[in-house]
């Protein structure tokens, strides 16, 4: 028995079938791409639509989520954003930017054994609130922070 494949299949619940199948080499990335990428969520233009597409309804507040980002970004092309959730059972993290053309920037699914602690970099067209949406133990929570974007000087 192929233990690697079995392990991969076992964690299927949290991952979405296609991600797992790709990892196990059972389907091609193209097949997964068609089915896997959450287009409705990434296309959503308002917070309500994005939350609805993500199945998050009306998320609660939580002091167990930290959004680590600068108050000011010198360049909106690269804004560091880190999300740390100490909520037990953190299984999903999404980063949303209110004033971007589409709000959802990135989402992550965390299997058991992967703590809620993720950092990445996003683009911001202008000063805006940035939201971290966390799903833990089946419930959604959200925190936000305003990040100022300066256009910087000239050159480049």
């Amino acid at each position, binding site marked *: 028995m192929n233990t690697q494949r079995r392990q*991969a299949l076992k*964690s299927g619940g949290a991952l979405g079938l296609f991600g797992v199948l790709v990892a196990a080499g059972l389907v091609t990335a193209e097949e997964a*791409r068609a089915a896997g*990428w959450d287009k409705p969520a990434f296309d959503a233009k308002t917070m309500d639509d994005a939350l609805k597409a993500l199945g998050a309804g009306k998320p609660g507040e939580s002091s167990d989520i930290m959004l680590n980002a600068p108050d000011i970004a010198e360049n909106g092309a690269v804004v560091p954003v*880190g999300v740390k959730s100490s909520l037990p059972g953190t299984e999903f993290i999404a980063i949303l930017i209110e004033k*971007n053309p589409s709000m959802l920037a990135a989402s992550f699914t965390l299997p058991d054994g992967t703590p809620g602690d*993720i950092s990445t*970099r996003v683009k*911001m067209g202008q000063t805006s609130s940035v939201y971290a949406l966390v799903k833990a133990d089946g419930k959604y929570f959200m925190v936000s922070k305003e990040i100022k974007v300066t256009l910087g000087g000239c050159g480049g």
Partner: protein
Amino acid sequence: MAGPMRIRAASNGTETEVKVLMSHEMETGQRKDPSGALIPAHHITELTATHNGRVVLSGQFGPAVSKNPYLQFRFKGGAKGDKVTVSWVDNKGDKRSDEVVVS
């Protein structure tokens, strides 16, 4: 086409910290070229990280993730010598997979 990723994976005995730099344009689809024509969107859509074959993170990116994306996360377990693999696909079907040994 796309260049290799830079992956670092370091174990502290109980957890492994993974840092990934991906080489990708992450074109938004909102910019215009000098002739005024819209440059089509070209961005990573999905990525998966595995540790010795087990998925430890899966992610979805929209065009708002920065060019040459950076990603940092941790997972429990992992020992020196283990393998961590990161794979991505983009909206044009390009894909890339790179592997690193945990240090």
